[in-house]
Protein backbone atom coordinates (compact mmCIF):
# COMPACT_ATOMS: atom_id res chain seq x y z
CA UNK A 1 0.00 0.00 0.00
CA UNK A 2 1.53 3.33 -1.04
CA UNK A 3 1.87 5.88 1.80
CA UNK A 4 -0.86 8.09 0.38
CA UNK A 5 -3.34 5.23 -0.01
CA UNK A 6 -3.96 4.72 3.68
CA UNK A 7 -4.62 8.42 4.22
CA UNK A 8 -6.98 8.34 1.26
CA UNK A 9 -8.98 5.57 2.92
CA UNK A 10 -9.22 7.69 6.07
CA UNK A 11 -10.25 10.74 4.05
CA UNK A 12 -12.80 8.71 2.13
CA UNK A 13 -14.26 7.45 5.38
CA UNK A 14 -14.59 11.00 6.73
CA UNK A 15 -16.02 12.21 3.43
CA UNK A 16 -18.72 9.56 3.66
CA UNK A 17 -20.08 11.44 6.68
CA UNK A 18 -18.96 15.06 6.05
CA UNK A 19 -17.55 17.46 3.48
CA UNK A 20 -13.85 18.39 3.65
CA UNK A 21 -11.98 21.20 1.91
CA UNK A 22 -8.68 20.66 0.10
CA UNK A 23 -6.84 22.36 2.96
CA UNK A 24 -8.47 20.05 5.48
CA UNK A 25 -7.62 16.98 3.42
CA UNK A 26 -4.01 18.14 3.18
CA UNK A 27 -3.90 18.59 6.95
CA UNK A 28 -5.06 14.99 7.34
CA UNK A 29 -2.38 13.85 4.87
CA UNK A 30 0.25 15.69 6.92
CA UNK A 31 -0.55 13.83 10.15
CA UNK A 32 2.40 11.81 11.44
CA UNK A 33 1.59 8.10 11.34
CA UNK A 34 3.52 5.13 12.68
CA UNK A 35 2.59 2.10 10.57
CA UNK A 36 2.40 -1.40 12.00
CA UNK A 37 1.34 -4.79 10.63
CA UNK A 38 -0.48 -6.93 13.18
CA UNK A 39 -1.38 -10.63 12.97
CA UNK A 40 -4.93 -11.87 13.51
CA UNK A 41 -6.23 -12.23 17.07
CA UNK A 42 -3.83 -9.75 18.63
CA UNK A 43 -4.71 -6.88 20.94
CA UNK A 44 -3.98 -3.38 19.68
CA UNK A 45 -5.06 -1.62 22.88
CA UNK A 46 -6.19 -3.28 26.11
CA UNK A 47 -8.74 -2.40 28.73
CA UNK A 48 -6.97 -0.34 31.40
CA UNK A 49 -4.36 1.07 28.99
CA UNK A 50 -3.67 4.80 28.89
CA UNK A 51 -2.81 5.31 25.22
CA UNK A 52 -1.15 8.46 23.92
CA UNK A 53 -2.00 7.72 20.30
CA UNK A 54 -5.02 6.60 18.28
CA UNK A 55 -5.02 3.75 15.76
CA UNK A 56 -6.32 4.18 12.25
CA UNK A 57 -7.23 0.90 10.56
CA UNK A 58 -5.59 0.66 7.14
CA UNK A 59 -6.24 -2.96 6.25
CA UNK A 60 -7.91 -5.92 7.88
CA UNK A 61 -10.69 -6.41 10.35
CA UNK A 62 -10.73 -5.20 13.96
CA UNK A 63 -13.16 -5.33 16.85
CA UNK A 64 -13.81 -3.67 20.16
CA UNK A 65 -14.59 -6.18 22.89
CA UNK A 66 -14.92 -6.87 26.60
CA UNK A 67 -14.23 -10.09 28.47
CA UNK A 68 -16.11 -11.53 31.43
CA UNK A 69 -14.12 -13.19 34.23
CA UNK A 70 -14.93 -16.72 33.04
CA UNK A 71 -13.66 -16.07 29.52
CA UNK A 72 -16.88 -15.15 27.74
CA UNK A 73 -16.34 -12.36 25.24
CA UNK A 74 -18.74 -9.75 23.96
CA UNK A 75 -17.68 -8.09 20.72
CA UNK A 76 -18.96 -4.52 20.88
CA UNK A 77 -18.33 -3.38 17.31
CA UNK A 78 -16.46 -4.23 14.14
CA UNK A 79 -14.03 -1.84 12.51
CA UNK A 80 -12.73 -1.76 8.98
CA UNK A 81 -10.23 0.33 6.97
CA UNK A 82 -10.67 4.07 7.46
CA UNK A 83 -11.99 3.71 11.02
CA UNK A 84 -10.29 5.01 14.17
CA UNK A 85 -11.89 2.71 16.74
CA UNK A 86 -10.17 4.32 19.73
CA UNK A 87 -10.82 7.94 18.84
CA UNK A 88 -12.45 8.23 22.26
CA UNK A 89 -9.02 7.84 23.89
CA UNK A 90 -8.32 11.44 22.87
CA UNK A 91 -10.65 12.55 25.65
CA UNK A 92 -11.20 9.45 27.83
CA UNK A 93 -7.79 8.64 29.27
CA UNK A 94 -8.33 5.04 30.36
CA UNK A 95 -9.51 2.34 27.94
CA UNK A 96 -12.74 0.80 29.28
CA UNK A 97 -12.61 -2.00 26.68
CA UNK A 98 -10.04 -3.63 24.41
CA UNK A 99 -9.41 -3.44 20.69
CA UNK A 100 -8.05 -6.41 18.80
CA UNK A 101 -7.55 -7.74 15.30
CA UNK A 102 -9.75 -10.50 13.88
CA UNK A 103 -7.74 -10.83 10.66
CA UNK A 104 -4.18 -9.86 9.70
CA UNK A 105 -4.34 -6.07 9.74
CA UNK A 106 -2.24 -3.00 9.31
CA UNK A 107 -2.80 0.07 11.39
CA UNK A 108 -1.36 3.57 11.64
CA UNK A 109 -0.81 5.08 15.08
CA UNK A 110 -1.41 8.83 15.23
CA UNK A 111 -0.16 10.73 18.32
CA UNK A 112 -2.90 12.32 20.43
CA UNK A 113 -0.83 15.51 20.43
CA UNK A 114 -1.04 15.74 16.63
CA UNK A 115 -4.78 15.09 16.64
CA UNK A 116 -5.33 17.76 19.32
CA UNK A 117 -3.33 20.25 17.25
CA UNK A 118 -5.27 19.29 14.13
CA UNK A 119 -8.57 19.80 15.95
CA UNK A 120 -7.43 23.19 17.28
CA UNK A 121 -6.41 24.41 13.83
CA UNK A 122 -9.31 22.90 11.88
CA UNK A 123 -12.57 23.12 13.82
CA UNK A 124 -14.48 21.48 10.94
CA UNK A 125 -12.24 18.42 11.18
CA UNK A 126 -12.83 18.40 14.92
CA UNK A 127 -16.54 18.52 14.16
CA UNK A 128 -16.21 15.66 11.70
CA UNK A 129 -14.35 13.47 14.20
CA UNK A 130 -16.98 14.32 16.80
CA UNK A 131 -19.66 13.36 14.26
CA UNK A 132 -17.85 10.07 13.72
CA UNK A 133 -17.98 9.22 17.43
CA UNK A 134 -21.67 10.18 17.50
CA UNK A 135 -22.33 7.79 14.62
CA UNK A 136 -20.39 5.18 16.61
CA UNK A 137 -22.87 5.72 19.42
CA UNK A 138 -25.76 5.38 16.96
CA UNK A 139 -24.32 2.03 15.82
CA UNK A 140 -24.12 0.89 19.44
CA UNK A 141 -27.78 1.84 19.91
CA UNK A 142 -28.80 -0.32 16.97
CA UNK A 143 -26.67 -3.21 18.26
CA UNK A 144 -28.42 -2.80 21.63
CA UNK A 145 -31.80 -3.09 19.95
CA UNK A 146 -30.56 -6.18 18.14
CA UNK A 147 -29.09 -7.85 21.22
CA UNK A 148 -32.11 -7.04 23.32
CA UNK A 149 -35.02 -7.51 21.00
CA UNK A 150 -34.16 -9.20 17.72
CA UNK A 151 -34.01 -12.87 16.81
CA UNK A 152 -30.73 -14.50 15.80
CA UNK A 153 -31.85 -14.40 12.16
CA UNK A 154 -32.69 -10.69 12.36
CA UNK A 155 -29.47 -9.80 14.19
CA UNK A 156 -27.17 -11.47 11.69
CA UNK A 157 -29.12 -10.10 8.73
CA UNK A 158 -28.84 -6.60 10.19
CA UNK A 159 -25.11 -6.98 10.82
CA UNK A 160 -24.46 -8.17 7.26
CA UNK A 161 -26.42 -5.17 5.91
CA UNK A 162 -24.51 -2.78 8.16
CA UNK A 163 -21.13 -4.09 7.00
CA UNK A 164 -22.24 -3.80 3.36
CA UNK A 165 -23.09 -0.11 3.83
CA UNK A 166 -19.99 0.75 5.85
CA UNK A 167 -17.58 -1.08 3.57
CA UNK A 168 -19.24 0.37 0.49
CA UNK A 169 -18.70 3.88 1.85
CA UNK A 170 -14.92 3.30 1.80
CA UNK A 171 -14.84 1.46 -1.51
CA UNK A 172 -14.36 -2.04 -0.12
CA UNK A 173 -17.36 -3.76 -1.67
CA UNK A 174 -17.76 -5.28 -5.08
CA UNK A 175 -21.38 -4.51 -5.84
CA UNK A 176 -23.17 -6.45 -3.09
CA UNK A 177 -20.20 -8.52 -2.01
CA UNK A 178 -17.36 -8.04 0.45
CA UNK A 179 -14.57 -9.90 2.20
CA UNK A 180 -15.85 -11.24 5.52
CA UNK A 181 -12.88 -12.76 7.39
CA UNK A 182 -14.93 -13.64 10.49
CA UNK A 183 -15.35 -17.04 12.11
CA UNK A 184 -18.71 -18.28 13.31
CA UNK A 185 -17.38 -17.94 16.84
CA UNK A 186 -16.62 -14.25 16.27
CA UNK A 187 -20.07 -13.68 14.78
CA UNK A 188 -21.50 -15.45 17.85
CA UNK A 189 -19.57 -13.18 20.23
CA UNK A 190 -20.84 -10.12 18.37
CA UNK A 191 -24.48 -11.16 18.19
CA UNK A 192 -24.78 -12.72 21.63
CA UNK A 193 -25.80 -16.16 20.39
CA UNK A 194 -24.10 -19.56 20.25
CA UNK A 195 -21.91 -20.73 17.38
CA UNK A 196 -24.57 -23.38 16.79
CA UNK A 197 -27.19 -20.69 16.26
CA UNK A 198 -24.86 -18.71 13.98
CA UNK A 199 -24.36 -21.82 11.87
CA UNK A 200 -28.11 -22.42 11.68
CA UNK A 201 -28.85 -18.82 10.74
CA UNK A 202 -26.21 -18.85 7.99
CA UNK A 203 -27.70 -22.10 6.66
CA UNK A 204 -31.16 -20.56 6.72
CA UNK A 205 -30.01 -17.32 5.06
CA UNK A 206 -28.52 -19.40 2.24
CA UNK A 207 -31.62 -21.58 2.01
CA UNK A 208 -33.77 -18.46 1.79
CA UNK A 209 -31.69 -17.17 -1.12
CA UNK A 210 -30.45 -14.07 0.72
CA UNK A 211 -26.68 -14.71 0.81
CA UNK A 212 -23.98 -17.07 -0.38
CA UNK A 213 -20.33 -17.43 0.62
CA UNK A 214 -17.58 -17.62 -1.97
CA UNK A 215 -13.88 -17.82 -1.12
CA UNK A 216 -14.10 -15.83 2.08
CA UNK A 217 -16.48 -13.29 0.60
CA UNK A 218 -20.09 -12.74 1.48
CA UNK A 219 -22.33 -12.29 -1.54
CA UNK A 220 -25.68 -10.65 -0.85
CA UNK A 221 -27.95 -12.29 -3.40
CA UNK A 222 -31.08 -10.42 -2.38
CA UNK A 223 -30.29 -7.01 -0.87
CA UNK A 224 -33.90 -5.98 -0.38
CA UNK A 225 -34.70 -9.35 1.15
CA UNK A 226 -31.74 -9.16 3.56
CA UNK A 227 -32.68 -5.61 4.59
CA UNK A 228 -36.21 -6.78 5.27
CA UNK A 229 -34.99 -9.82 7.21
CA UNK A 230 -32.85 -7.63 9.49
CA UNK A 231 -35.32 -4.73 9.63
CA UNK A 232 -32.38 -2.67 8.40
CA UNK A 233 -32.75 1.09 7.89
CA UNK A 234 -29.39 2.81 7.17
CA UNK A 235 -30.47 6.15 8.69
CA UNK A 236 -28.40 5.51 11.84
CA UNK A 237 -25.18 5.36 9.82
CA UNK A 238 -25.72 8.99 8.78
CA UNK A 239 -23.89 8.46 5.53
CA UNK A 240 -23.66 11.04 2.79
CA UNK A 241 -26.93 10.74 0.79
CA UNK A 242 -24.87 9.61 -2.21
CA UNK A 243 -23.75 6.54 -0.25
CA UNK A 244 -27.25 5.36 0.57
CA UNK A 245 -29.24 3.28 -1.89
Amino acid sequence: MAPSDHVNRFIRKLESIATLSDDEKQALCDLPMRLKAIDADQDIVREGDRPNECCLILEGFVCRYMMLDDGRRQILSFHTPGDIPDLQSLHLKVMDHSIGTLAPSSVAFIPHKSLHELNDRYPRIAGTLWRDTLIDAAIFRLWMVGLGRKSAYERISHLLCELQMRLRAVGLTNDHSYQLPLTQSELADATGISTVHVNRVLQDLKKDGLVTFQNGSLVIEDWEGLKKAGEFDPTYLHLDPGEVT
Partner: protein
Amino acid sequence: MTRTLSSPGKNGNGISFTEQPVRVAAGGGDQEGCLIFADDWLVAVLVRLSQAHEALTGRWFLEAGFGPLATKHNMIFEDLHDAEAWISRRLKGDGQAGGRHS
Protein backbone atom coordinates in the same frame (compact mmCIF):
# COMPACT_ATOMS: atom_id res chain seq x y z
CA MET B 1 -41.00 -43.53 23.81
CA THR B 2 -39.10 -42.87 26.96
CA ARG B 3 -36.11 -44.55 28.47
CA THR B 4 -34.92 -44.28 32.03
CA LEU B 5 -31.21 -43.60 32.04
CA SER B 6 -30.58 -44.17 35.69
CA SER B 7 -32.76 -45.26 38.53
CA PRO B 8 -33.12 -43.30 41.76
CA GLY B 9 -30.07 -43.72 43.92
CA LYS B 10 -28.13 -45.58 41.27
CA ASN B 11 -25.93 -42.63 40.41
CA GLY B 12 -25.72 -41.56 44.00
CA ASN B 13 -27.79 -38.42 43.72
CA GLY B 14 -31.27 -39.82 43.88
CA ILE B 15 -32.33 -38.29 40.56
CA SER B 16 -34.05 -40.39 37.94
CA PHE B 17 -33.37 -39.29 34.38
CA THR B 18 -35.67 -40.01 31.48
CA GLU B 19 -35.05 -39.08 27.89
CA GLN B 20 -37.78 -38.62 25.33
CA PRO B 21 -36.89 -38.31 21.62
CA VAL B 22 -38.60 -35.42 19.87
CA ARG B 23 -38.36 -33.60 16.58
CA VAL B 24 -37.30 -30.00 17.04
CA ALA B 25 -37.79 -27.26 14.46
CA ALA B 26 -34.45 -25.73 15.38
CA GLY B 27 -33.56 -24.46 11.91
CA GLY B 28 -30.40 -24.96 9.89
CA GLY B 29 -31.22 -28.65 9.36
CA ASP B 30 -31.16 -29.55 13.06
CA GLN B 31 -34.26 -31.54 13.97
CA GLU B 32 -33.33 -34.57 16.08
CA GLY B 33 -33.93 -33.65 19.69
CA CYS B 34 -34.32 -35.10 23.12
CA LEU B 35 -36.23 -33.94 26.18
CA ILE B 36 -34.46 -34.72 29.44
CA PHE B 37 -36.63 -35.22 32.50
CA ALA B 38 -35.26 -35.38 36.02
CA ASP B 39 -37.77 -36.98 38.33
CA ASP B 40 -40.57 -36.06 35.93
CA TRP B 41 -39.39 -32.46 35.66
CA LEU B 42 -38.39 -31.26 32.20
CA VAL B 43 -34.92 -29.84 32.79
CA ALA B 44 -33.30 -29.72 29.36
CA VAL B 45 -33.88 -29.85 25.63
CA LEU B 46 -30.95 -31.24 23.66
CA VAL B 47 -30.58 -31.17 19.89
CA ARG B 48 -28.29 -33.41 17.87
CA LEU B 49 -26.14 -31.35 15.51
CA SER B 50 -26.59 -32.10 11.81
CA GLN B 51 -23.89 -32.41 9.16
CA ALA B 52 -24.06 -28.65 8.63
CA HIS B 53 -22.00 -28.30 11.82
CA GLU B 54 -19.03 -30.17 10.31
CA ALA B 55 -16.66 -31.14 13.15
CA LEU B 56 -19.48 -31.00 15.69
CA THR B 57 -21.81 -33.30 13.71
CA GLY B 58 -23.53 -35.85 15.91
CA ARG B 59 -22.88 -34.07 19.18
CA TRP B 60 -25.65 -32.81 21.43
CA PHE B 61 -26.27 -29.10 21.93
CA LEU B 62 -28.04 -27.76 25.01
CA GLU B 63 -30.87 -25.94 23.28
CA ALA B 64 -32.58 -25.00 26.51
CA GLY B 65 -31.77 -25.64 30.13
CA PHE B 66 -34.19 -24.84 32.91
CA GLY B 67 -33.57 -23.81 36.51
CA PRO B 68 -30.00 -24.69 37.53
CA LEU B 69 -29.27 -25.73 33.94
CA ALA B 70 -29.78 -22.24 32.55
CA THR B 71 -26.43 -21.02 31.22
CA LYS B 72 -25.04 -18.47 28.82
CA HIS B 73 -22.30 -20.92 27.89
CA ASN B 74 -22.37 -22.81 24.62
CA MET B 75 -22.83 -26.36 25.94
CA ILE B 76 -22.08 -29.21 23.55
CA PHE B 77 -21.83 -32.86 24.63
CA GLU B 78 -20.29 -35.94 23.02
CA ASP B 79 -23.35 -38.04 23.80
CA LEU B 80 -26.39 -38.16 26.06
CA HIS B 81 -24.45 -39.81 28.89
CA ASP B 82 -21.99 -36.94 28.83
CA ALA B 83 -24.94 -34.54 28.94
CA GLU B 84 -26.55 -36.46 31.80
CA ALA B 85 -23.35 -36.34 33.83
CA TRP B 86 -23.22 -32.55 33.45
CA ILE B 87 -26.93 -32.22 34.28
CA SER B 88 -26.41 -34.32 37.43
CA ARG B 89 -23.61 -32.09 38.60
CA ARG B 90 -25.61 -28.95 37.98
CA LEU B 91 -28.70 -30.29 39.72
CA LYS B 92 -26.56 -31.23 42.72
CA GLY B 93 -25.46 -27.59 42.86
CA ASP B 94 -21.97 -28.15 41.56
CA GLY B 95 -21.89 -24.63 40.13
CA GLN B 96 -20.01 -24.21 36.87
CA ALA B 97 -17.76 -27.21 37.50
CA GLY B 98 -17.25 -29.81 34.83
CA GLY B 99 -19.17 -28.10 32.08
CA ARG B 100 -17.74 -28.21 28.62
CA HIS B 101 -18.34 -25.18 26.60
CA SER B 102 -17.00 -23.56 23.50
